[in-house]
């Protein structure tokens, strides 16, 4: 059943939906668009392309306390902290590439034993409204990863934006329930939603068939010696990447009381693999750059059958020195001309 809502009624919709739990929307603050919980007066940018940071933090928060403790070494008590069944978030306006990336995280955090209950709860509790994408920018290359910018199969609701209206196509029961709550604002779609057709993105001339297998032989490829050179060892690419999921665990507090939390971490940092005794298996940028790209292009596919990239283009946009996955694929024999 297709529904629609006039763009002028969206603020009312936000207000209603956010009463149920945090409503994550692409919100612009000081010129930067990111998914944030909606608040009164927020500038919602459904029209914007991908925000700088992908919405993975809604399920894998930048920082998440999962344990509190109290008492010193003689009287330690530990208490679990986890999202409750009432923590129902709505993720509204996620683009198909980002949703596909979330599904990739699902495999690691939900499917792979032992599952991660913190992630799973947030994910299961959340209702996801995907938004079709009609105007990719020069850095979007999701086509290459079989993403249809106009359709996200995993969404609870698929939404399409037109000049005056937002069309909503419910896909799941969760989606139905959500829309039911905003019944008064929503009407049946009289005409067929203007679903964007054949949204074409660039492919940078890449050809990915067989790449993962070929890379097994290219661990010591001289191409790595040039590729890593410009890397600054910052964590931009990993933090803006929707399929990166590494984390760190740290305690905060004093002997009497405190908490343990996990937070995002990046394999691009030298400390990431630094062992207490001083040994570091990936001491230099070369090993770390290689690890990151091979994880995306070889290791993840070896386990899950698919390259861990959705072509969202964020690393291309954000890397301060323009070192990105496209460059890596090209350097490693993924260029169409070389393969065909």
């Amino acid at each position, binding site marked *: 059943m297709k529904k629609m809502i006039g763009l002028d009624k969206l603020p009312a919709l936000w207000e209603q939906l956010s009463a149920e739990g945090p409503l994550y929307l692409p919100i612009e*603050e*000081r*010129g*930067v668009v*990111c998914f944030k919980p909606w608040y009164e007066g927020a500038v919602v940018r459904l029209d914007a392309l991908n925000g*700088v*940071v992908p919405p993975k933090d809604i399920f894998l928060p*930048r*920082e998440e306390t999962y344990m509190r403790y109290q008492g010193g070494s003689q009287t330690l008590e530990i208490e679990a902290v986890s999202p409750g069944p009432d923590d129902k978030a709505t993720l509204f306006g996620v683009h198909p590439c980002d949703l596909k990336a979330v599904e990739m995280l699902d495999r690691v955090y939900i499917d792979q034993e032992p599952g991660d209950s913190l992630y799973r709860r947030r994910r299961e509790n959340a209702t996801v409204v995907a938004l079709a994408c009609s105007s990719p920018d*020069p850095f979007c290359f999701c086509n290459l990863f079989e993403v249809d910018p106009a359709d996200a199969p995993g969404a609870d609701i698929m939404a399409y934006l037109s000049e005056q209206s937002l069309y909503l196509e419910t896909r799941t029961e969760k989606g139905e329930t959500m829309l039911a709550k905003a019944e008064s604002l929503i009407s049946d779609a009289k005409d067929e939603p203007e679903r964007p057709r054949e949204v074409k993105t660039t492919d*940078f001339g890449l050809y990915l068939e067989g790449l993962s297998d070929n890379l097994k032989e290219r661990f010591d490829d001289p191409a790595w010696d*040039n590729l890593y*050179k*410009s890397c*600054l*060892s*910052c*964590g*931009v690419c*990993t*933090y*803006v990447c929707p399929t990166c999921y590494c984390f*760190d665990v*740290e305690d*905060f507090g004093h002997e009497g009381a405190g908490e343990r*939390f996990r*937070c*995002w*971490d*990046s394999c691009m*940092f*030298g*400390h990431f693999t630094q062992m207490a005794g001083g040994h570091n298996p990936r001491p230099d*940028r070369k090993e770390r750059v290689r690890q990151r790209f091979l994880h995306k292009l070889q290791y993840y596919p070896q386990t899950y059958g698919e390259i861990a990239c959705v072509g969202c283009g964020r690393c*291309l946009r*954000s890397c*301060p*020195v*323009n*070192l990105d996955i*496209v*460059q890596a694929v090209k350097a490693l024999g993924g260029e169409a001309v070389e393969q065909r």
Partner: protein
Amino acid sequence: MAEKSLKEAEKIREIVGQDLLGGRIGLLLGWEKGHYWWQSRPLFAKNEADLEKLTWDSFCVINLSRYLLEELKEHGKVGVLVKGCDARAFNRLLQDNMVARDRVVLYGLPCPGMLDYGRLNEEAGGALISISESNGSVTLKTGTGEKSVERDQVLMKKCAECVYPDPVVYDQLLLSPQGKKEGVERFKSVEDLEELTPDERFAYWEGELSRCLRCYACRQVCPFCSCRECFVEQDNPRWQGRAYQPGENFMFHLVRAYHGTGRCIDCGECERACPVDIPLQELNRKLIKDINQLYGDYEAGVDAEADPPLLTYRPDDPAAFSEK
């Protein structure tokens, strides 16, 4: 692309080519094009084929000096193309004892300022296809036509506010100097913030810093951040927690800025590198402004011989607090 910059690039290639191929330097740090015409990336040229890729146009914004830290471990002598900011960055590294002057050949490139793709796009108002430049103006070609804008309108922010476009240190100057830019109002936004009440200012910074991802791009790109182990990563003592708490955000950003007191060369790379557009330069510039006001004019990186202000003192120095 402007014919001028093509000619200039040709000239640069020729001169550095002699040194590289003649063995005077083992490596040349320059720029090559990225995926698109508005992108450049660092080039690590070792041979003639690499040199072919060398580019010099209005998008060579990335500061190359920092790469010396790593490359000097591999090569006996390294050549670097330096714009004004890169040269100041070099001086910064020199003052911090991070590079050996005699192992680096600096090719000075007086810089007209680099262009900002975002601003170009905004000015174009539609899908920008290409640009051409002549005499301080830029012609934007879009699918629907052409438009001319002043070059100054589409400069990178950091370049629009640059005071020293010419390299302050070099072995060879490859282009003709631009001259020191007068009347640059680089402290305007600092002054505007100073007008706010403390609570307003705090709210401003809390909002800006709340976006911080702790990717440390600002640090990694910065010529004054050359510590082997940043305080951020230390476990003992743990100066800085990894949590994304407001206090931890402030801890990092205030200390990062403070560590640049009298050392920040005002190149703006931190702000450019920041993926979430935190106005880091405002923090840096606040310190530049105040240090100049309190302890006399000092422009970090301009003169490698001048004492950095926090490493010296005068008995009659003023203070920012009551000395009664």
